[in-house]
């Protein structure tokens, strides 16, 4: 089946490529998935499109390693979750994907990071351009101290996008499931909104510039459960258009929303002076949570260690 056909299928769940030749999720009773590919089909032309390919990515701040030797692939139209205990470098890792680490002078990134096959850290690459295509939502909602309308319109205006601004704003707010709540209050200051609304506003703001990928760094950790639920539902809708990478310290959230999960652990060096993170396992979410390959993963997801 060609990829285009796959995309026009009226599936509620995307196709997944089983990694490592495992049997498909179809065996799991709660999720019915149509698997299109043979196990171990790397190199198959109908292979799922990769958004990011990380090869031995390591990040260090001023010589102190934060995350080491990450080699994973992130796929299009999936929600990819990064989980792990605090200090394991999940945030650092996700920030390499849109070059936000550039803002830290002492940060250095080694390894290869391909975005749709292009080296994201190539010599001619402009980080500003990168961030237009790869958007980010932060842990603590950070709306601008302006009106709802101005918050959303800032991106398109600054990037000189074409189209009627009113339409762009409305579309972004609808897409973020916020339109009905704010349509009569577009000129109100964003700071007057609740935390959950502010975060959806930030998501809408990100959507307004029409990115390709949305990165979310613990987007719900500052929110109440109801707002969290709304945003999780939103994620499931958005992945039809975008590709999403989410960092979360909430395992159940990862299990709920993601298609693929990467589990990172902290490593210490010999004399416990420095610590960094490393990928332990990266696989289908179902597999990570029900039948992980690595005992450390098992310990973490079953709550034995945190």
């Amino acid at each position, binding site marked *: 089946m060609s990829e285009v056909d796959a995309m*026009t299928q009226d599936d509620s769940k995307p196709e997944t490529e089983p990694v490592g030749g495992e049997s498909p999720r179809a065996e799991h009773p709660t999720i019915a998935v149509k698997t299109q590919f043979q196990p171990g089909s790397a190199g198959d032309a109908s292979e799922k499109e990769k958004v990011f390919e990380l090869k031995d990515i390591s990040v260090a701040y001023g010589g102190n390693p934060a995350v080491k030797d990450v080699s994973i692939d992130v796929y299009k139209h999936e929600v990819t979750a990064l989980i792990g205990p605090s200090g394991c470098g999940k945030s650092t890792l996700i920030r390499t994907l849109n070059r936000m680490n550039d803002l830290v002078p002492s940060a250095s990134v080694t390894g290869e990071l391909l*975005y749709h096959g292009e080296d994201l850290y190539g010599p*001619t690459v*402009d980080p500003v351009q990168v961030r237009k295509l790869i958007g980010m939502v932060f842990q603590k909602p950070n709306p601008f101290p302006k009106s709802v309308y101005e918050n959303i319109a800032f991106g398109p205006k600054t990037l000189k996008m074409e189209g009627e601004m009113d339409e762009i704003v409305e579309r972004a707010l609808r*897409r973020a499931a916020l339109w009905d709540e704010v349509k009569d209050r577009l000129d109100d200051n964003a700071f007057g909104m609740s935390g959950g609304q502010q975060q959806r506003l930030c998501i809408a703001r990100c959507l307004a510039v*029409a990115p390709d990928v949305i990165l979310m760094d613990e987007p719900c950790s500052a929110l109440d459960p109801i707002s969290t639920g709304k945003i999780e539902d939103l994620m499931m809708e958005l992945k039809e258009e975008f590709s999403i990478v989410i960092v979360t310290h909430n395992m159940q959230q990862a299990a709920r929303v993601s298609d693929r999960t990467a589990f990172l652990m902290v490593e210490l060096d010999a004399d416990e002076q420095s610590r960094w993170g490393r990928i332990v396992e990266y696989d289908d979410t179902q597999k990570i949570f029900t039948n992980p390959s690595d005992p450390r993963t098992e310990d973490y997801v079953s709550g034995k260690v945190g």
Partner: protein
Amino acid sequence: MESSGHIAASQVPAITRPRLEAASPRYGEKVIYWLLAACAGLSVLTTTAIVISLIVPSIEFFGEVPIFEFLLGTDWGPTFTPPGFGVLPIVFGTLSVTLWALVFAIPVGLGAAIYLSEYAGPRVRRILKPILEVLAGIPTVAFGFFALVFITPQIQKIWPSFLGSEPGIFSVAAGGLAIGLMIVPIIASVSEDSMSAVPAGLREGAYALGATKARVATKVVFPAALSGIVASIILAVSRALGETMIVLIAAGNTPNENLLENFNPVEAIQAMTAFIATTATGDIATGSITYKTVFAVAMVLFLMTLAMNLLSIRFVRKYREVYE
């Protein structure tokens, strides 16, 4: 990325290379960077200009007047014939006024600071601090006038006879008092900042032992805030050294060759700043010996305040280090 649920095949872009290079060379950003850097660099330019404006005439000055005669001599009268170039009288004049200013300002300023930091409730602080700001904002010509028409007559009135003759129209006492009043806000607010920064835990420990406020203030808070307090005093000294209008109006313009007599509060003196102000009027000729003398004196003044400032930075850094 339209807001439809499905993406028709025709709308899917062929998998093309994403454009990651900059859309435009963005020269504007570079221009802005250099413009802003120039604004910041102006400060360096200003310092350089000040230094050059002082050094060049000073060097020429020392070509004509031996440096030791200048720095160690007590015969000051550059505009007289024959001219005297010993600068010590006016240096001592400045030092004297500064000293008397401190005699007034340190107890008053520190007292106000301790009161604000340890005793005053929030309502009192809300009234008192703005009042101190008002005091800080009063133009120096107003202080000078106050010294001349209020302080001087009052001093003359209450001057006890056993202290000898009372001060005349111009006196160190009047000038010193006025400068002292002017620098009280500097000492008070910087010291108060420093004392407020002392962690509450230190105070509470002492109070828990039953100590009185006085003890806590003097034996716990004051020593802990010491470097900030010293910084405030140094800043105040620097300000007093450079003060022109008050000394000009109230302390007189007659240099006193007897160096120690400069410190006598009833005496009139000439401060360095007063000399500069009266001599550097618009018609002073560039390159004349008078011109060079003015700048040589300004050089001495500049070096004195610079030394004070660098010293105070050291102390401020020490007290900031601990809490930040």
